[in-house]
């Protein structure tokens, strides 16, 4: 008898956990995009001037991403899926001049989160057979939405968030 990873019985009857093709793809895609985001954030960190923005990127975002990477690596390992190469631990270089502004980096960051929201939603909508995996993706999306809400508020506070054309109610 086997329930998920727990088995009682003859060793020949053991079955490794199975994953469908689409679920394997979304697991890999989620991990790859986090590796990319971590590397990109490390590059951005060299250019950030504002101290609290730096702290938000380091503690707020990178820590969340690292935790999620650990979960995804464990899941891929559980399903015997090949892991992609990890990004470098840190990327340091000297950036002179003031070409890349904090406002520009903020907009890259918020765009990245918007793309990530799309990806996570797609992953949830496509992971309909494996409840455990769906639960993981739902957890990731909830965290992403929370971060997005905070980033929007922070951007407003700093004056970096650009407003689309506004519509004003006409009144009675």
């Amino acid at each position, binding site marked *: 008898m086997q329930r998920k990873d727990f088995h009682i019985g003859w060793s020949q009857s053991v079955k490794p956990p199975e994953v469908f093709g689409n679920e394997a793809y979304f697991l890999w895609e989620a991990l790859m995009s986090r590796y990319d985001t971590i590397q990109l954030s490390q590059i951005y960190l060299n250019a950030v001037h504002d101290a609290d923005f730096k702290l938000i990127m380091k503690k707020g975002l990178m820590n969340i991403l690292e935790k999620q990477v650990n979960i995804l690596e464990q899941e891929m390992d559980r*399903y015997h899926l090949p892991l992609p190469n990890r990004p470098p631990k840190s990327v340091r270089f000297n950036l002179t001049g003031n070409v890349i502004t904090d406002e520009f980096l903020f907009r890259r960051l918020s765009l990245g989160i918007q793309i990530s929201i*799309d990806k996570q939603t797609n992953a949830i909508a496509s992971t309909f057979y494996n409840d455990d995996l769906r639960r993981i993706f739902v957890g990731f999306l909830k965290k992403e939405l929370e971060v997005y809400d905070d980033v929007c508020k922070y951007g407003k506070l700093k004056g970096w968030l650009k407003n689309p054309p506004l519509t004003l109610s006409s009144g009675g």
Partner: protein
Amino acid sequence: MVQIGNFHIGRYDSAHKPVLSSGEGSYLWEILVALYDWNDTLEILVNYAYDQELIDFLRKCEHLLNKQTKILEDEMAHYQVPLPERPRKAISFDTESGVVQDDFIFSRIFINSQNFLLLCSGAVKISVVSESLRETFLKILLERIEEFDEICKFGRKKGWLQMPPKQKIN
């Protein structure tokens, strides 16, 4: 002059009217139209459903739909965005049992739920001006995720959920 939220006391020209972006207004309208459309579809599907559990499930979906419709209608009234036409209150007709199968009805709910997730996440994404509207869209998205979870489990229990292809990973 005093204004707390949308409540204002003072000279008429000192009041701050609620503001939203063109994108937020368009998503409000788009989601509400999708909900109205889904309301009509559910009313039609209930007539064809044979399995009692499926009928109960469809009614449950209607409950969430009505709740979210009310929230969006209130938001649209608040921002004075013109409302689309409302769907019919009820659609009843005689059906020959077996013409539309229960698994086909389930597929309609499943696919619609997937589409709603994408639509609602798009709405959250573009809501950068109005904090309260972002919160509303976020709540709607989270409720839709919960519903999608229930749909998946219900479909698997009934054997109506299509199994994706199993592939050997190298």
